[in-house]
């Protein structure tokens, strides 16, 4: 098995007729994902990469039994699109869109949870379970089937690390890009709990960065609840305080969110922290 995303997913693409939506629909299909429908209001009746397009999520669910959605719609419309998917009963929604206002997410995330819906993102590369499916924008070829669960706040840095893991002969059970925003649907601890329970996952890699206290909370969780080996990486050791380092969530505020604090928390929890991406598979092998 894998975490959250398996072969059983019948994926809907919201914003399928946009440039990104179309491009990544092709790539998801190539990875073996069952992309069963697309939604773009006003474009119902057309097809993208052979996938039928509908005007609303409800139609896509009724006609094509979609049970998960990936959202590519622009930030001003992302809240609307996600609520529409929740109301149509979908239980897994991946929001790729970046630059969604924080207050939209403050409403969206607790609401999704109250409906038993798991949201991944926003501002994330998505989720991928090699051998099963991909709901995301990651490059297909760097992944391989295996037993490493990967959790990350970043995009390209994840690819770099996944590439090293795969090159070293490991593969991934599932890789979850939780997103670089301050308010995310699935946080690091929640993702970690899923991997701890998953039988296909034997070891876990956590890619953190400066800002917030997710890594510190993750370290606490590891101490109490995780029996599988965990390897960490923390980006932003040289970042100055008070500056947003590209991601909305990557900011040291006062004394909160420093790389030093996160690395110390990981070390206290017995989680080795890699200096270089290439060290990650080495630490996995020795853990």
């Amino acid at each position, binding site marked *: 098995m894998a975490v959250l995303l398996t072969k059983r997913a019948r994926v809907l693409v919201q914003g399928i007729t946009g440039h990104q939506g179309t491009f990544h629909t092709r790539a998801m299909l190539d990875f073996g994902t069952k992309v069963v429908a697309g939604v773009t209001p006003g474009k119902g009746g057309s097809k993208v990469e052979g996938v039928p397009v509908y005007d609303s999520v409800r139609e896509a669910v009724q006609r094509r039994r979609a049970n998960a959605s990936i959202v590519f719609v622009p930030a001003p419309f992302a809240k609307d699109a996600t609520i529409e998917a929740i109301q149509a009963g979908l239980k897994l929604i991946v929001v790729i869109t970046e630059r969604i206002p*924080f207050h939209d997410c*403050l409403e969206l995330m607790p609401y999704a949870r109250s409906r038993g819906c798991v949201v991944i993102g926003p501002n994330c590369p998505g989720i991928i379970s090699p051998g099963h499916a991909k709901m995301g924008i990651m*490059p297909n070829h760097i992944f391989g089937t295996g037993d490493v669960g990967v959790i990350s706040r970043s*995009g390209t840095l994840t690819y770099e690390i996944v590439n090293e893991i795969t090159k070293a002969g490991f593969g991934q059970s599932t890789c979850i890009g939780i997103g670089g925003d301050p308010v995310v649907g699935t946080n690091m601890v929640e993702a970690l709990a899923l991997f701890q329970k998953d039988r296909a996952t034997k070891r876990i890699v956590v890619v953190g960065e400066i800002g917030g206290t997710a890594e510190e909370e993750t370290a606490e969780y590891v101490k109490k609840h995780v029996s599988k080996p965990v390897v960490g990486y923390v980006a932003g050791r040289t970042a100055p305080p008070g500056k947003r380092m590209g*991601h909305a969530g990557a900011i040291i505020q006062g004394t909160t969110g420093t790389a030093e604090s996160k690395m110390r928390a990981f070390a206290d929890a017995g989680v080795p922290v890699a200096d270089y991406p290439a060290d990650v598979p080495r630490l996995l092998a020795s853990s």
Partner: protein
Amino acid sequence: MKFLEHKAKEVFARYGIPVPRGIVVSSPDGIVDPPLPCMVKAQVLVGGRGKAGGIRPASTLEEARQAASEILGMAIGGYRVKEVLLAERLAIEKELYLSLTIDRSAREPLLMASALGGVDIESVPRDEIFLEHVPAMIGIQPYAIRALRKRLGLPKGVGDQVADIVRKAYDLFRHEDAELVEINPLAVTTDGRVVAGDAKLVVDDNAEYRHPEYAAMDQDRTPLEAEAHDKGITFIQLDGDVGVIANGAGLTMATLDILNLKGGRGGTFLDLGGTDDPAKVREAFEILMKAQPSVILLNIFGGITKADTVAVGIQQALDAMPSKIPVVARIKGVNEERAKDLLREIGTHPAETIEEAAELAVKVRAGGR
């Protein structure tokens, strides 16, 4: 978007939160009829202005002009003081603290208050701080305000005013898409009024499209950072000398970290994002070269990004802005062999891995090639 104190107070006033009377000037001559006695306060976006001498009392017009002329032009935290606020001096009996922030872990707004205001909240003992999460979909409820009043031990008249301010501050927080609303001190005057002595406001950059009126405000950016921002380029100047450019925020940070581990110091954080459009790459490189780094370290991990078109952008930038700045480039992605050939042709130093690229950048910088 960070707000200067006087800009934040304008917004506060719009929401009905009491603020002291005040005027804003950019030259001492502009002071005609200040509220007296007053506090003359440097308007900067960085903290620590009191300690830096940027806040002074004045009782007469002459004193106000004198204080203003001393504060204007001062450098506080690396930024020039361009404006001062002359605010009515309050007869303060007690200083409270009030703020609304986003609690990232709880994924909810957080209301904080303390009877020990006027100092940095990080220095206030935890058990002296009232904390209550607010469900964003529902908003602030009366119980939270009752609990706050009791916890701070507020008498009836003052308590009623504070309750009103809390409700208005939350309205502001929501409707203005704020990340932070902080009133410190929230002053209780000797005549029993409650007034916002200071005002901090940060509005979410992602919500700029809902608040276009704030887009033109000065931010704490260097001139080059401001130029990059206007062009939609994510760029931060740092205190090292190696110009670091990469794709993706996490990878750019990691590249800076690895450079540091190899003995170099980053002078820029430039996140190219997901683009492989040569024109955008060229624009980013032009910003980077204006920062005058001793060497440029480029690190692209493009799963989908086309490496060769990124290389074309670099070529165009180097053609347009001939310079002696050496470039170390590590590019992974579609058509990476073609990219490497092109990079070699234009005299850059190709590298295979980040570690190798960082080592090479340090070496090239020292003059070895």
